[in-house]
């Protein structure tokens, strides 16, 4: 089974974020980065599928030079090789554009399965995976909790709302977006770390992907990223203290005259 894992590098979860003056994004210079959480689970799932059914795991990551650090971590954990798309020249927040670029890279490969995380921990749009499937012309399933290989395809468990789950069958090739927590992520072994440097990381640019500048232009899909800001406090909490009888009276008064709900 040949599996391509789409993996993004995102700021470490508890980072102190400072928004840039123009409100377009956060200052990246002081940030530490890590593998996006659900992508990490996707990688682990891919490694487990490979161990069970043999095959190859190829990492695909888009981002600036720093992304190679995450790629090497993935290679140290057992991925066989990697593709790095340096997007320094066309960074965009548009999942449609990102999916188009990823698809161009994946189309150069033969694959049975594409796995990605459910969503990224930075933008959290949860769209790149499904748009990517559409670009590749393969079926997809989202929020996947379990994967079972069957003759000619796979059967996956999807998480729905309120504790409900759904089993769906898909043919191969197909694409799955993986929910966090579906397995236990392994540590890299020290031998794996030492072997990682011998593994291939193929760097691809737009021209190698057969794409032009206009293909990755911002705003072409109508999605405009206007401003990033810290949520403003609009609600006020009031705490009444004192004799329960008086407090109840005050509360009733507030609900009636201020909130106007009774």
């Amino acid at each position, binding site marked *: 089974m040949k599996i391509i894992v789409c993996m993004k590098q995102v700021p470490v979860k508890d980072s102190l974020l400072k928004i840039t003056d123009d409100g377009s994004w956060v200052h990246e210079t002081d940030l530490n980065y890590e593998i996006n959480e659900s992508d990490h689970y996707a990688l682990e799932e891919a490694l487990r599928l490979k161990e069970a059914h043999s095959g190859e795991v190829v990492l695909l990551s888009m981002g600036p030079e720093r992304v190679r650090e995450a790629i*090497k*971590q993935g290679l*140290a954990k057992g991925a066989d090789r990697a593709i790095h798309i340096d997007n320094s020249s066309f960074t965009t927040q548009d999942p449609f554009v990102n999916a188009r670029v990823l698809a161009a890279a994946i189309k150069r490969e033969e694959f049975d399965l594409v796995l990605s995380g459910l969503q990224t921990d930075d933008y959290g749009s949860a769209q790149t995976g499904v748009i990517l499937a559409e670009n590749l012309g393969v079926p997809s399933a989202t929020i996947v909790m379990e994967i079972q290989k069957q003759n000619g395809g796979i059967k996956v468990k999807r998480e729905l709302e309120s504790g409900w789950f759904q089993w769906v069958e898909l043919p191969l090739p197909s694409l799955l977006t993986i929910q966090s927590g579906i397995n236990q992520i392994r*540590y*890299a*072994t*020290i*031998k794996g*770390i*030492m072997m*990682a*440097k011998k593994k291939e990381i193929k760097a691809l640019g737009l021209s190698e992907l057969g794409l032009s500048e206009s293909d990755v232009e911002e705003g072409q899909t109508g999605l405009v990223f206007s401003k990033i800001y810290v949520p403003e406090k609009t609600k006020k909490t009031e705490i009444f203290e004192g004799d329960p009888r008086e407090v109840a009276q005050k509360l009733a008064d507030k609900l009636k005259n201020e909130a106007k709900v009774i």
Partner: protein
Amino acid sequence: MDYTEEQQMMRDTVREFAKNEIEPVSAELDEKAEFPAENFKKMAALGFLGIPFPEEYDGAGMDTVSLALAIEEVAKVCGGTCLSMAAHISLCATPIYLFGTEEQKKKYLSPLAQGTSLGSFCLTEPGSGSDAGAAKTSAVLQGDYYILNGSKAFVTNAGVADTFIVFAKTAPDEGTKGMSAFIVEKGFDGIVVGKKEDKLGVRASDTHPVSFENCRVPKENLLGKERDGFKQALITLDGGRIGIGAMAVGLAQGAMEKAAAYAKEREAFGKTISKFQAIGNMFADMATEIHAGRLMVHHAARLRDKGKPYTREAAMAKLFASEAAMRATKNAIQIFGGYGFCMDYPVERYWRDAKLTVIGEGTSEVLRVIISREILKELA
């Protein structure tokens, strides 16, 4: 100091493992004085127990700097686990790597590097610690076997080890020149592991006396040549001191991190105690000494990796880092105040664990002898 990409990745992996797997159990293992058998299995699987050995002997093919980085990360969360790991690698597997025959390396080093067997080092005796040359354990060649008799003390990992490096006199009248080293398996007739020591610190490491009562050791288990034992012990301890130095740095760093988290939370007189100059000064001293200790340890490690002499530098690194760890862990308790004095809070454990580092593998006093001897030789 620059570290390779592999060293940084390895350090991050050990750090992650230490935080997730070792730290949650370290207080309990300390209280129960229990060896972390489960974690050693996991560490073995990840390759932590074979870091500095070549791949042909199932090691990771890394170097002494890498080992120091790994040891520091483990010490940051558990001194006991760290000491067992350091002794296994530096005191048992390393002398086999340095002095063993090809057969010995295949038979003993590979499983030690894989962590499928654990190792111990038997040099100190009840009546001889710093004066290792005064050891009384004897080895007499009879046919195809050496017959070992005598007692060893404070043997780390003794209760869990499969392989022991044992120093014994093959020429009892010749002092240090009469000592030889042997690889002894736990299953050999006549090796007796005594009652476990109840220690002040590093309680998760497993320490026992070991005695040899007509213990039969095949003559092919002689390590290197007869009478080379004392020299081998000194070379082994030179390397071991880099490990104990790294352990001291890790303990100090771990205690400082705990103290910093507390000082930034605890309030007195209307502000967090981290804002008081007296507390700030403690952090400044701790951080400076930890930094200096780490540089010294890594410098000694780098010399060793380059095949240059490092006896003096390793002794200095261990001396400085271990005494700095005593000061840092003492101050960490002071920052925690009354809570620091209670066993429910972790910093007192760091202080108890740090005490090992000024004693084991050369006391501070012996290290000063070594350093002054080396310096005066050069300056004469």
